[in-house]
């Protein structure tokens, strides 16, 4: 066996990727880490502060309230969008012209930019001239999302459900289409009820796409910014000030770079942690399969 010459020059080939990752991820992130441990004054004067900002953020009522609102919002929309999306996917026709029509209709909301969605609902729900707001008031509801926190929340949730349930439905539809006919035929022969087919054939086969759907919807909804800002700017009061809105207020409104940077990192770690928990819970028991 002839010994091959050892050559380390191949490492240079990795360089472009390393540079790319460094410029779009590592360096910006490290800048944030850098800000998060320092106090900033004018004239580019920085003083090292250690974990002071982290301590301040974690212990501030303002951050905790925003986090609670965020968890509540994400919890509610997941609880609505996932079952609703699966239900819609189950009801969609499998083949024929109507299948294509449904797919196109379901994709429409996904193609609309976030700020346009916000603006649409803002106008739609206006109590005096918006179709929805005006109708609600006409039939006897006292509805004004710019003044009532509950109304603002309901509008925000309705908007998100309208915008994103399609994503869950389309993923679930793809998952359902991938189930071989033999499963349905075998279930029919075994005398399974439609409920048993859902419980023992369809849902287990949908598990993987639903894991993806839940993770995507969790991460996206946890980072939601544009729609509530366009709708009410986080109000009334702080009623719909979710984490990202609060962050922007601190960073750009008050220009507190240190606390904003610390909050960004905490925010990022929360998303990472919760995604990991979701993933673990949903793929539990896989290894023996």
């Amino acid at each position, binding site marked *: 066996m002839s010994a091959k010459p050892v050559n380390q020059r191949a490492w240079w080939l990795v360089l472009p990727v390393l540079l790319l990752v460094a410029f779009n991820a590592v360096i910006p992130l490290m800048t944030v880490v850098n800000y998060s441990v320092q106090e900033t004054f004018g004239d580019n004067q920085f003083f090292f502060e250690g974990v002071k900002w982290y301590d301040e953020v974690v212990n501030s009522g303002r951050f905790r309230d925003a986090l609670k609102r965020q968890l509540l919002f994400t919890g509610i929309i997941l609880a609505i969008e996932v079952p609703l999306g699966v239900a819609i996917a189950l009801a969609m026709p499998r083949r024929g012209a109507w299948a294509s029509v449904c797919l196109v209709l379901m994709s429409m909301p996904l193609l609309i930019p976030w700020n346009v969605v916000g603006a649409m609902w803002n106008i739609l729900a206006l109590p005096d001239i918006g179709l929805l707001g005006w109708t609600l008031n006409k039939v006897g509801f006292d509805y004004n999302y710019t003044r009532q926190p509950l109304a603002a929340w309901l509008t925000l949730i309705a908007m998100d459900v309208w915008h994103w349930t399609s994503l869950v439905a389309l993923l679930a539809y793809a998952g359902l289409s991938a189930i*071989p006919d*033999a*499963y349905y*035929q*075998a279930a*029919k*022969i*075994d*005398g*399974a*009820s439609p409920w*048993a087919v859902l419980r*023992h*054939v369809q849902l*287990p*086969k949908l598990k993987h796409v639903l894991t993806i759907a839940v993770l995507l919807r969790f991460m996206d909804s946890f980072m939601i910014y544009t729609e509530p800002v366009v709708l009410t700017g986080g109000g009334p009061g702080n009623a719909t000030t979710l984490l990202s809105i609060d962050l922007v207020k601190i960073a750009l409104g008050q220009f507190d770079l240190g606390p904003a940077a610390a909050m960004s990192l905490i925010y990022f770690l929360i998303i990472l942690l919760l995604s990991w928990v979701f993933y673990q819970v949903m793929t539990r028991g896989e290894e*023996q*399969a």
Partner: protein
Amino acid sequence: MARIRLEALRHSYLKQPARDADWALKNVDLQWQDGGAYALLGPSGCGKTTLLSIVSGLLRPTSGRVYFGEEDVTGQPPDRRNIAQVFQFPVVYDTMSVYDNLAFPLRNRGVPPAQVDARVREVAALLDLEAMLAQRAAGLTADGKQKISLGRGLARSDVNVIMFDEPLTVIDPHLKWRLRSKLKELHQRIGMTMIYVTHDQTEAMTFANEVVVMHEGAVVQVGTPVELFERPRHTFVGHFIGSPGMNVLPCEVDNGVPRFAGVPVPTANAATGTRAGARTEIGVRPEFVRFADEGVPVRVVRVADAGRHQVVETRHADTVIRVLLKEHETVPAEHAHLAFDAAFTRLYVDGWVAGETA
């Protein structure tokens, strides 16, 4: 338990079948006795799976009737027909244990728990699944899963017939043989009617007492493996069954005597039913062809060693004639003559054996 009778079944997947080719099944009449082991054999697209789906009730035929015993079940859904089916790809309920899989069809039918338990254990014993009852079904190998699919059918006491749709497709070759003998053994032990769909002649021949050969949506012959081998009713059967398949030689019929290459070829059947313009052919299996001093002159083209025997390919003009020789028999040099064993040589008119009508 019941006899199964199919009457004038026709099926098309198109809404308005116009041409002959639009029909997946063209007028099938069949009878299966209670407790028999049957195979439906044919190449892909011959209609065998369509026929099976009609028997199981997953498909409603365009026309014709299906009878179980005296009852007309044509319009009944599969769960009312008391049938079981094993599919090409193993179907198990992933989230359930092996035990729950086997119990599933019984629980769906409201069988009392004590009885469910007894049946499940009985079936598990029959299929050698006892050790894995508590395991999750998703973790089993393909042959284990296929046994579960079969077990769900066996567990039910009301089953008229178990149908297999190419059940060994995804099984490893060395396990195929074991599962096949297991099926055969099961059939002998429980005496349930079994219908086995396959395109593999070895599977069909080893499993079934009676094989139904299908071709382009029609049944071309029903018979025991020996009948199919020795007396093919159609050139397709001769060609499809056997390895290598039957030699089919275009011939002329002259005063009731078939002639190939000018040489008269005596056949087992009389040359009746020949018409002007009909396609006439001589069919003879390579097993029944031998080299002789006189007969059909041929050129030896190539010899293939197939272990215990040799396959000799010879040609007369453009017609290939294969000869099967034993391991050590000598193959003549380039030019030779062939003789056919008259008892196993038949004349075919338009594909069908002369003297019988399709």
